[in-house]
């Protein structure tokens, strides 16, 4: 099925796409059909900069298990450094 559900957030950072590094302004997160991963549904994240056009995108398609592991790893990495560094 197409779930269509989508979370959209503003972000600040950089990503490396097909044409090299670029600034990131938006992330779109959704659980739906992947383009490439061999699963019926995956947790997909599009790191984007719409101001630089549709190709300014870094895409990942993760199984639900992988996505949860990634989310936990991000939180763990942030928690392991002095709070002053990540405030």
């Amino acid at each position, binding site marked *: 099925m*197409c779930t*269509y*559900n989508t979370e959209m957030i503003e972000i600040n950072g950089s990503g490396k796409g097909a044409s090299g590094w670029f600034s990131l302004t938006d992330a779109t997160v959704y659980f739906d059909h992947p383009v490439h991963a061999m699963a*019926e549904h995956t947790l997909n994240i599009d790191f*984007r900069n719409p101001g630089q056009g*549709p*190709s300014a995108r870094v895409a990942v398609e993760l199984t639900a298990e992988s996505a949860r592991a990634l989310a936990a790893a991000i939180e763990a990495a942030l928690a392991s450094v002095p709070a002053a560094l990540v405030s």
Partner: protein
Amino acid sequence: MTEALTAQTIRITGFGGDEIEAYLAIPDDGAAARGSVVVIHHMPGYDWPSKEIVRRFAANGYAALMPNLYFREAPGASPDDAAATARANGGVPDGRLVGDVGGAADYLRALQNSNGKVGVIGYCSGGRQSFLAACSLPLDAAVDCYGACIVYPPPEGMPLKVSPIVDLATDLSCPLLGLFGEDDKYPSPAETAELSKALDEYGKPHEFHTYADAGHAFFSVNRPAYRPEAANDGWQKIWDFYGRYLAS
């Protein structure tokens, strides 16, 4: 069936007079007159599997044309990048879809060997759009492959800016073939049953088939969702249906 065909990317006039990209395939079979099909791509975009579908129609004797519905947002972008942009923007506005399909139908009718008959087919979000086009334009046959949000509203929180359009059924201009999967949730068998009931009430000819052991996107040969039994029978249903309504 012909093995010789010509396929190419062209420009057509779509909604609002906009020039948009489209993929055209025409059989090189020497037929004096033939029917045509507008192909509406799925939500993942104007990609190579969708272009294979266009060529498949040509191989079976139809002129086929697929407008790139995401061309305005992402001209020249790869299909997956274009689809991501369209998704973030809330999808394709209904009015624009109708204009683009209408432009494609006009192009096909103007072909030298056209018999004047044009059908439409769409997959996934294109299934809903196929129904929408057939309720908004004079067409000769429509196929809806697992299109959701015709009867029920989209799920809570989804950014796609679409609303139910079942009330348009009263304006359906042609017979409708619906091909669905029993395991699909969007559209669910309950939703397609309600659509069938509405079409019965309006006296609109239609035939729906719901396949067991198949879910959404069972025609997608490159995806795990592919169900060859349902897809093979579905293709046969399509050839029978278009043979009845689009043949010379």
